[in-house]
């Protein structure tokens, strides 16, 4: 028979070994990519897991800018992600507000269409998008890509924003209307300030979604000067030999750090937004 004290000790031991094991599992890939980026060698084959700090080689970061188009990819990605964020957040907030707070013919059908369309990945219409962009001369341009991305995320944004406004009582609107406020006044001065958290979530989501996308970029952006980071980094490691592994690692670190900071800043909005969105659905 084990004493209660011994039992507690065992419990303590088990729980903490699980916690520590999880920390190792969670952090190892992160450590691996960081150490990869400062490894003396250049290929995956020659990279060591525990090189001595004296051998750390920061040259791969320089190589990114000197030998590869990293800066161009970075700029492209940021430009695309920010444009997509602005467009799809604006459109999504407009239509989400309209679907939540107005009665109009076709509202139910419109909502149904949005929910269903939101489930289809843009990639299913790939051939058409390719043809369409080609016909308008938008293939291999950032404008074409941004439009496709925005169209892909606007339905989800509408849905989330609608769910948020549903929770705001209509009496607020009516009170403002009695005071003689116009539709635009109500929208801009009363509703938008209330919606800041959900706008932050939607904007963050659109930004991340666009900077993470790989597949549509691969379809639309063909020339390497137009590539996004996802495409550029993929080509660095897609071969069998992985001769550029350390450079890839350096590139991965440079994009991950700002995005991780952003994630931790927005963390509260993200968990709330995601759960709220799904519960409404």
């Amino acid at each position, binding site marked *: 028979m084990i004493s209660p004290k011994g039992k507690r000790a065992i419990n303590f031991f088990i729980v903490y070994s699980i916690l520590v094991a999880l920390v190792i599992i969670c952090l190892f890939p992160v450590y691996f990519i960081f150490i990869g980026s400062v490894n003396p060698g250049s290929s995956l*084959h020659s990279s060591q897991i525990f090189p001595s700090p004296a051998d750390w080689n920061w040259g791969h970061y320089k190589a990114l800018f000197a030998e590869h188009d990293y800066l161009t990819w970075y700029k492209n990605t940021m430009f695309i992600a920010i444009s997509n964020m602005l467009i799809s957040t604006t459109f999504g907030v407009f239509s989400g507000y309209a679907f939540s707070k107005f009665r109009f013919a076709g509202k139910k059908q419109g909502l149904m269409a949005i929910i269903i*369309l939101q489930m289809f990945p843009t990639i299913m219409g790939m051939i058409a998008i390719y043809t369409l962009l080609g016909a308008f001369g938008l293939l291999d341009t950032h404008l074409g890509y941004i439009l496709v991305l925005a*169209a892909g995320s606007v339905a989800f944004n509408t849905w989330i924003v609608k769910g948020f406004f549903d929770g705001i009582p209509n009496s607020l609107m009516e009170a403002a209307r009695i005071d003689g406020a116009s539709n635009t006044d109500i929208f801009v001065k009363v509703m938008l300030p209330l919606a800041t958290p959900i706008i932050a979530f939607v904007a963050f989501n659109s930004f991340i979604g666009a900077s993470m996308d790989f597949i549509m970029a691969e379809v639309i952006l063909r020339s390497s000067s137009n590539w996004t980071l996802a495409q550029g980094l993929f080509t660095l490691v897609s071969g069998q030999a992985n001769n550029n*592994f350390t450079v890839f690692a350096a590139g991965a670190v440079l994009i991950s750090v700002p995005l*991780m900071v952003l994630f931790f800043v927005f963390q509260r909005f993200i*968990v709330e937004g995601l759960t709220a969105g799904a519960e409404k*659905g």
Partner: protein
Amino acid sequence: MSTNLESQASHKDKSHSKIAALLSVLFMGLGQIYNKQYWKGISWALFELIILIFFIKPIMSGLHGLITLGETPQVRQRGRIVDPGDHSILLMAEGLMLLIVLIAIVGLYYLSVRDAYLVGKMREQGQRIMNFKESVRNIWDNGYAYILITPTAICMILLTVFPLVFTALIAFTNFSSPNYLPPRALVDWVGIEQFVRLFTMESWRGTFLGVFSWTVIWAISSTLIVVFAGLFVAVVLSQKVVKYTKFWRNIYIIPWAVPGFVSILIFRNMYNGQFGVINDMLRSVGLNPIPWLSDPTWAKVAVLMTNLWLGFPFWMALFTAVLTTISKELYEAAEVDGATIVQQFRNITFPIVMVAAVPLMVFTFAFNFNQLTFIYLMTEGGPMNANYNYAGHTDILLSWIFKMTLDNGQYAIASAVALVVFLLIAGFAYFNLRNTKSMKGEA
């Protein structure tokens, strides 16, 4: 002219609405003019005139192109193009767009007739009719919602609806490499031939069924594994012995914070059969290296494990939030009754957290079903499967479609598969939405 109409109308006051509607059917705006809304009437009439003058011809030729998909093939002599010929796919896209325009025009036509009818009805009942200025104001007020929706609607019609319809149409043609590639050759409508091929030809049917079943297995197991791992971690974190919960939680959330494509590519390298760090470790403890990404079964395991790493933090965060809402007294009461930890978990924790989790699990399932970025970045569908047409062992339906389209030019049959996926998703969506509160609650 208008005085003439007016005197006529005053004789039979009762049928303003019908006359106005009929006149509007004859030509847009006539009904409005009859209703003495001159400016409005003239605007409508101008609109129809513009359409008649500028749009009739393109619409007719567009529809013709859509039906025939081009008639003159390209003519070449000694390698030089003599006659460029018709480009079937461009004709189809053009035709489809003009068809959408036509539908929009018919819709507007209906609106103009309805407007004339309603205003006529108001006149019958002796109500005052709005003048032009008031009408414009009225549109601005009542149409506010439509104005807000317009950008989204245009975006989605052009880049979501149009592509889906287009894909559906392509599934009924023979558009494919190497024999039916415009502009060198014409494409034809072939009815359901692609579907017949997909479901009766041995190689296609085998590929479809194989890829389809892996897609379903992947979507279900990736969801379940991630959810239960998240729950497990959340429960461990909620143990009384754990100090600094927030610290641990923030570490465990890191996999979520790392950009997705970066972590997928990292894992791709870690699993590398020859040089990967995982096999290095196995070798250093004296085990045989595992052919992670080159063996079909291990590749699937690797894909699922990577997804576990990426996906569990979200569920942990969610479940941690839910667990804090469960009252401590429930557990204390259970302890007094002598319930073990396992019993407490099964009878108290599990039912409560699942209520919160199920709707999100459905979403995750649908998301994973379409998660081709993940599969493509991780394995590119590999390892190769000799029995499959254009697919590898870890390909899901969407990555198969993607490869057939982008790498192999099998547009028609890829579209047929896409159409099948479309029906599957639509069915799933319908089934799923039938019971949601937000659709029921809305008027």
